[in-house]
């Protein structure tokens, strides 16, 4: 007979494990479900930073974590977008801004107007029609205002260890039990875990085991048919280097991602430093050579130690087996690009919350969870691969290989339809919506051949006026936004005011 879920055990470390714990604690623990964390040793290095999409703010709101704590405790910097340079030959750098464009009037978005404008000689780049991108270039922070037609929002960069500690503290305060341990063994009954045996011999039973252990896949990796399916054919970087450089002043509102001969390098501004991340292909350059090149590639003096680790992009054949669910990078992993790292954990946790099992029986939710996670993962992989596929860096083995790589059918369809008509064909479970894809594809130089015929029904004067109006609106909105440093200082003032009030 089946019965209700009573005990959930999360095994993992760092932000993903504590995000899962916080999410459960805020919802199901009130429904009489006990949540316990088995905390594995951290995988983080001192220089690690997380780059997060704006959606993370929704997670914080849901669990009740105050945003200002990120700025005061985790050295967070608000990020309006990501800037890509040196990927596509002569094409200028571009910014993927975190826009929430208005729903297209009568099905006709500004992108279609822009494409026709471009064909008629419009010089203004697409990114100038993105509120987030323009804010990013101006070093200002887009705060979404209720009811505004044009909306943009910000994500964050912050210190990974400090954020994990904050979440840990927050969750423990909420009453979640935890124990620092390692997993020595797993007791199985068929494809179900009956208990895990910790390093100190303790035997831990649960109705549901959540694997938030990242690439180690401590639990899911021991389940049947869960081998790791590599995506290296599309995402070639297998090494990652993390280091720190001094803080940028004034603080920019974007992360900078530059391609180089053997990979890419990202500069992620934090309040007190700049996190430097390089992802590269070990077949093209050794760790030592990269380390030597690092100051030149970053164009910044590197301070402290650089740490090198391996990268593996891919997905487990199954992400929920029996009573074991993988969340975060134990389910699938990507390049540390496009701010998807924490997003992977966030996405998996939200899906698990929606499909949180009713009973500790046959788990009919598993198949749907796996299907959703797989589709979301493939969509994200395609998004990342598009950066590589559309490159214009010739006579460099890594980049030539990416251009020549066989394109997954899912992405090929998107590219073809966009090339033909400037339309993004979204699949189910997409993280990045039309605007993000448009920024990416146009930014990397994929110019549509035609546009929606309804644009031709708009008289030329009106067409020009609409484009001009959008540019003016954006300029006006950006002028009213606070520069990054002022924004952070404002957060701090708010905190000081509260401390004073409490004192």
């Amino acid at each position: 007979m089946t019965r209700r879920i009573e005990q959930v055990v999360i095994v993992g470390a760092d932000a993903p494990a504590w995000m899962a714990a916080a999410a459960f604690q805020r919802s199901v623990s009130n429904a009489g479900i006990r949540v316990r964390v088995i905390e594995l040793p951290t995988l983080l290095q001192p220089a690690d930073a997380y780059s997060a999409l704006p959606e993370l703010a929704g997670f914080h709101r849901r669990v009740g974590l105050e945003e200002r704590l990120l700025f005061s405790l985790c050295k967070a910097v608000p990020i309006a977008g990501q800037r890509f340079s040196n990927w596509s030959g002569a094409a200028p750098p571009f910014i993927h801004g975190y826009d929430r464009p208005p729903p297209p009037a009568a099905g006709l978005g500004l992108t279609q107007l822009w494409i026709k404008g471009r064909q008629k000689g419009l010089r203004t780049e697409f990114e100038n029609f993105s509120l987030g991108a323009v804010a990013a270039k101006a070093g200002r922070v887009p705060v979404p205002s209720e009811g505004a037609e044009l909306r943009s929002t910000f994500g964050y960069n912050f210190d990974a260890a400090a954020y994990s500690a904050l979440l840990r503290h927050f969750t423990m305060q909420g009453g979640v039990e935890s124990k620092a341990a390692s997993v020595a063994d797993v007791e199985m009954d068929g494809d179900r875990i009956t208990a895990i045996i910790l390093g100190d011999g303790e035997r831990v039973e649960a109705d549901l085991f959540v694997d938030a252990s990242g690439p180690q896949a401590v639990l899911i990796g021991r389940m049947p048919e869960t081998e790791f399916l590599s995506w290296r054919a599309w995402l070639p970087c297998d090494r990652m280097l993390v280091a720190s450089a001094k803080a940028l002043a004034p603080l920019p509102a974007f992360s900078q991602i530059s391609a180089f001969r053997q990979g890419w390098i990202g500069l992620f501004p934090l309040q007190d430093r700049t996190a430097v991340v390089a992802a590269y292909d070990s077949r093209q350059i050794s760790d030592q050579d990269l380390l030597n090149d690092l100051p030149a590639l970053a164009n910044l003096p590197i301070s402290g130690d650089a740490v090198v680790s391996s990268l593996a992009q891919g997905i487990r054949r199954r992400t929920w087996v029996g009573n074991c669910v993988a969340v975060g990078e134990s389910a699938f992993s990507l390049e540390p690009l496009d701010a998807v790292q924490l997003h992977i954990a966030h996405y998996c946790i939200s899906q698990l919350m929606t499909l949180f099992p009713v009973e500790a029986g046959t788990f009919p939710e598993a198949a749907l969870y796996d299907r959703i996670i797989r589709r979301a993962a493939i969509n994200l992989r395609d998004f990342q691969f598009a950066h590589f596929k559309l490159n214009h860096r010739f006579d460099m083995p890594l980049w030539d290989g990416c251009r020549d790589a066989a394109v997954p059918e899912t992405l090929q369809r998107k590219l073809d339809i966009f090339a033909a008509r400037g339309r993004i064909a979204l699949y189910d479970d997409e993280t990045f919506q039309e605007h993000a894809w448009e920024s990416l594809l146009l930014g990397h130089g994929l110019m549509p051949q035609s546009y929606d015929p309804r644009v031709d029904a708009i008289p030329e004067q009106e067409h020009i006026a609409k484009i001009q109006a959008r540019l003016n609106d954006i300029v006006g909105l950006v002028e009213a936004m606070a520069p990054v440093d002022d924004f952070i200082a404002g957060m701090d003032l708010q905190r000081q005011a509260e401390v004073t009030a409490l004192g």
Partner: protein
Amino acid sequence: MQQVRDIVVVGGGTAGWMAAAAFAKVLGTQAHSITLIESEEIGTVGVGEATIPPIMQYNALLGIDEDEFVRETNATFKLGIEFIDWRKPGSSYFHPFGLFGANIKGGVGFMNYWLRWVQSGGDPDFSRFIAEGEAAREGKFARVPPSPDGQLPRLNYAYQFDAATYAAYLRRYAERRGAIRREGRVVDVEQNPETGYIEAVKLADGTRVAGDFFIDCSGFRGLLIEGVFKAGFDDWSQWLPNNRAAAVPCERVGDPTPFTRSTAREAGWQWRIPLQHRTGNGYVFCDAYISEDEASRLLLERLDGKPMADPKILRFTAGKRRRGWVKNCLAVGLSSGFLEPLESTSIHLIQVAIMKLFELFPMREVNPVLIDQYNREMDLIYDHVRDFIIAHYKVTDREDTPFWQYCRNMDVPDSLAAKLELFKERGEARMIPGDLFSETSWFAVLYGQGLIPRSFHPVANALSEDELQLALTRIRTAIRQRVDTLPSHAAFIERCCAARPAATAA
């Protein structure tokens, strides 16, 4: 092929004129010519037609004034569909447009809380928590402005109108904007010998109508899409065995209801669509279980007003044209597929085809990538609607006639089987963005048909008993507040959009 300039619509009726009106508005008749060929000989079917809320988008595209439109098509407003005898004889439920309950802060979907409440003895009539359901029950309707604080629910609606006057209304609209109607019957088609593209159609009187792009609105037979291009047809009658309808208008006996009624019958179901001037009725059935004569006889027997004509028999097969777009020909309406009007999707599927064509319309040469994408997207929409309609037949307690025995025991598509399984387990009717029928719709129909979830999301248990009561009471109060202030449906129509006598006589 050069720039697509001349567009030819083959066939009038609702599909043809909806297409022509949209082309006339969007593409205009300056750079394009829009010609519609129809024959008075091939009459269209003029019974009541019910719609769903997305029709607002089509009307908005055309810039139609709602009151004028309602007046000229003898329309009434529709808040949903009442299903009688579907779960079992004597049962009924309401499938409303709109939202089920309201969000409960920090929680999961409303239906989980509602299920918890019902499991502990609450009223199992879910329409009490849907503003449209309450208004429909009381015969009330009005266009309501959104409440400033968002505290009061909206009222979502569509229309019920006379399809023949709707087509006539759109014809006037299209012709005013320069679309050209040609009387005639297509007897021959000229194709380019190399590309196979249609270059012209020939009419019975010998006229040749050339075009760059052809819209096939010729009805079930698919004169161009099937007759010329052999696009193929996926037959769905194993899941949707109904293949006939007997239709008849009758006199109006009371104030028109702001909803459509669907009553399950021994070998199918009967529709009742109230218009301003009369009531449209029909019996959709499968001729393997009841004869045309018997169905017509029973239909006449079961009218609530005096019949205004003899029942007309329509014949069809449920299914979808395998490719709705081939080369320079797009099928719109019945030529692209047929799903019985159980959920009022006929006009919607026409509208979707037209809107998608605009998005993917060829500027110059027809691009196979765009055609393929169109066909894929339409397949997803058709499959989704198909599954939703099949669910009405599969999920039932009825086994009182051979027809219902067949339906209840048939195998259903895997996509639907998986959905039913998960719903039964936990009330989850997850929708995919872009799906036509919302979670509320799926919930209303599956629950109403008798699929009672065994459980619900565990988070719904996190609310204490008193908080749950308070939340439900607040939502109920807001719904009552909204509904109490509404006028009757009849009074609303009388005040702003009663049909003119001339239109009534038409």
